[in-house]
């Protein structure tokens, strides 16, 4: 397993690497897939008309691995997340295989980069489904890639498990084949935070968010949630997604702001948080951020000292501590993170701890679903969807280290606990755990009434 992790860490030259039962077979398969690619390239040069089809593995059907097609953001703006999604997925697959695989068959991860691009994303889903012969597609984070890929997954009738935290699944925009069973959506996260913000930090909230769909989901969820608690969002500052300098936006923050709510994504997040500190200087309001603003970023970076005493939403607490999720230690060790949420091999390599648990949990949902459905091959895909839809409660365990979950089969969305941490001495210290119910909201869709 450690070899796999290292391979990903070094940027991995083999794109469509396949990870199977252990480190030894893994590298063998990697070379084989790479050779296959080379052979294909040579043939392409020889004549495009005669494109070779997929070169199938020569393996007995009964012991053939279950193939999980992994749509991973290795390049593009999602790359920092993609690397850790990759590692967690590999770790989960390794553990599943150590425990005997799924229905007695080993699990194989077939990973393919989508460049964090919706067009390529759709192509990757096609490739995984029809060329690599995957049983399910899985692992997408960025919501535009999910939107671009989900229609193809639906048409190809391949179960598509996303780990995106977008509200797209539960909003009803997608289809029966797309599910999000491993991570809560933005609407749930925000609803669960609002009571804490208004009761502990203040009632006059200014929000700073990225001016694209993800940020608008935050806005559309936060404004009513704060109002429901008797508070008010007094200013909404939307920042274009490509922005690289932020100071000029901060003067729009009203002076009577009691709580500044921030969420930002992309390569410029560190600049954003630093410039916010420089703007406020010694007189800042209470600050509540989504850890997205500093995911994969070291809190001890110079310029971030002012964050001491500010609050963050965390999907799962980055720093190991008393009162954290019960099964955190087990999971942390398996995915190769130290007590600070950094890679055990490089303390400067900070993980996306608040999101990547979704990959782990989704992998085990796939396993549980396949076992419940008696999954034997692609003809059982519909049964797999129905089995996952029927899951309901998932108690906290090594398979659900972030906490207990409730899966809503109608909206295809999971709900779970949310964590609020405070920065103390350069570390995030857990303050409050919002219960599952705090993030529940009325159903907006019933996918189970839709046809397959």
């Amino acid at each position: 397993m450690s070899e796999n992790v290292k391979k990903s860490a070094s940027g991995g030259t083999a794109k469509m690497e396949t990870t199977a039962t252990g480190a030894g077979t893994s590298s063998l398969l990697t070379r084989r897939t790479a050779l296959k690619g080379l052979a294909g390239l040579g043939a392409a040069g020889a004549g495009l008309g005669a494109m070779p089809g997929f070169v199938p593995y020569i393996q007995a059907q009964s012991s053939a691995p279950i193939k999980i097609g992994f749509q991973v953001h290795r390049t593009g703006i999602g790359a920092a997340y993609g690397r850790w999604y990759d590692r967690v997925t590999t770790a989960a697959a390794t553990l599943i295989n150590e425990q005997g695989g799924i229905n007695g068959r080993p699990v194989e991860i077939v990973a393919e980069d989508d460049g964090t691009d919706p067009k390529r994303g759709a192509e990757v889903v096609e490739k995984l489904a029809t060329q690599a012969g995957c049983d399910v597609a899985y692992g997408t984070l960025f919501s535009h890639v999910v939107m671009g890929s989900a229609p193809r997954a639906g048409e190809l009738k391949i179960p598509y498990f996303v780990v995106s935290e977008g509200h797209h699944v539960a909003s009803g925009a997608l289809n029966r084949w797309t599910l999000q069973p491993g991570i809560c959506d933005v609407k749930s996260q925000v609803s669960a935070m609002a009571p804490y913000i208004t009761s502990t930090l203040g009632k006059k909230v200014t929000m700073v968010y990225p001016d694209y769909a993800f940020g608008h989901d935050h806005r559309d969820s936060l404004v009513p949630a704060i109002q429901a608690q008797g508070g008010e969002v007094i200013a909404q500052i939307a920042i274009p997604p490509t922005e690289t300098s932020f100071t000029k936006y901060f003067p729009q923050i009203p002076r009577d702001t009691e709580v500044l709510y921030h969420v930002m994504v992309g390569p410029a997040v560190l600049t954003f948080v630093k410039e916010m500190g420089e703007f406020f200087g010694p007189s800042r309001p209470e600050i509540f951020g989504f850890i997205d603003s500093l995911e994969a970023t070291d809190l001890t970076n110079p310029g971030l000292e002012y964050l001491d005493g500010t609050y963050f939403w965390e999907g799962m607490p980055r720093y190991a501590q008393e009162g954290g999720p019960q099964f955190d230690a087990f999971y942390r060790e398996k995915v190769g993170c130290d007590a600070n949420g950094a890679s055990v091999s490089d303390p400067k390599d900070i993980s996306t701890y608040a999101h990547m648990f979704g990959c782990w949990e989704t992998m085990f949902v796939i396993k549980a679903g396949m076992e419940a459905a008696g999954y034997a091959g692609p003809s059982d895909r519909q049964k797999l969807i129905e089995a996952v839809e029927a899951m309901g409660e998932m108690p906290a365990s090594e398979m659900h280290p972030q906490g207990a979950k409730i899966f809503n089969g109608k909206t295809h969305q999971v709900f779970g606990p949310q964590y609020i941490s405070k920065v103390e001495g350069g570390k995030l210290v857990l303050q409050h755990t919002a219960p599952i119910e705090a993030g529940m909201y009325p159903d907006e869709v019933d996918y189970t009434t839709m046809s397959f």
Partner: protein
Amino acid sequence: MDFGPYLLLASLEGAVLAAVLSLTALGLSLVFGVMRVVNVAHGEFFMLGAVASWFVATFVDETLGAPAWLGFAVALAVAPLAVGAFAWAADRLVLERVGYDPERTIVATIGLLYIVQQATLMGFGPDARPVQPPFNHRLALPWIEWGEEGLALYWPWGLSTTSYKLFVIAAAVVLLIAVWLVLSRTRLGLVMRATQFDRETAQAFGIPVDRVFAMTFAIGAGLAAIAAVLIVPIQQAHYLMGGDPLLLSFIVVIIGGLGSLRGTVLAALLIGMSDGIISVFFSPTLAKILATLLVAMVLVFRPQGLFGARPA
């Protein structure tokens, strides 16, 4: 925040952008002026400067254990040279061989853009990596208010800048003057201007035009790299960071008049400052739409640029 302090803050931010932009755009403008080609990979030279700066600073600070300012200083010297050398090689290997044909050069530099970007992805990785500034202090700024007792100074909430940002502005001014001196007072500048004015005649007078071109291309890339070294302690080095500087440099060079150096600097000031100030009045996305449309309209109706005197 009150309107006055807001405007001051936006202007200061705009000045930092204008400083970096004028250096980057000057590089693009120089290349266009002398060589008559548009270098689409210019933003990638900017990015390479930032990445080189990270490598140098990290090496000096962490491997050699030197203080942050030394790492920055070494990067300021080394990164532009390295990027310039790379550009020189690119000119010799690619641009010269397509004979500086304007359209083929654009296509070739688009190719170069992808090559550089993706090679950086392979060697540097997809993360945004910070470089420590040599110094950085928050400076709260005062504002004047007409109070009950006449004029009074006060410190508005949030009105501040940092010493490093002021340094960036000052450094850009010094560098711009240096470039101007080189172009107007040295033999290299003379040769470059002669080549720009009339390539054939320059050649007839024994000027090695191909070497001048390679040198110009290297200097243009080096200017972008210097700008990146200056900005990277504020922002971070990232393999996709070249897109914005490229687009903005295009805008600046066009508004300023293609190939006009004075116009380029003026336009960088205009664009940089207005970027800060427009955001006071408009939604930033709308402001960007208006700015791009303005550029298109300038090219359509006033192709010599707003500050250019003669047609390009």
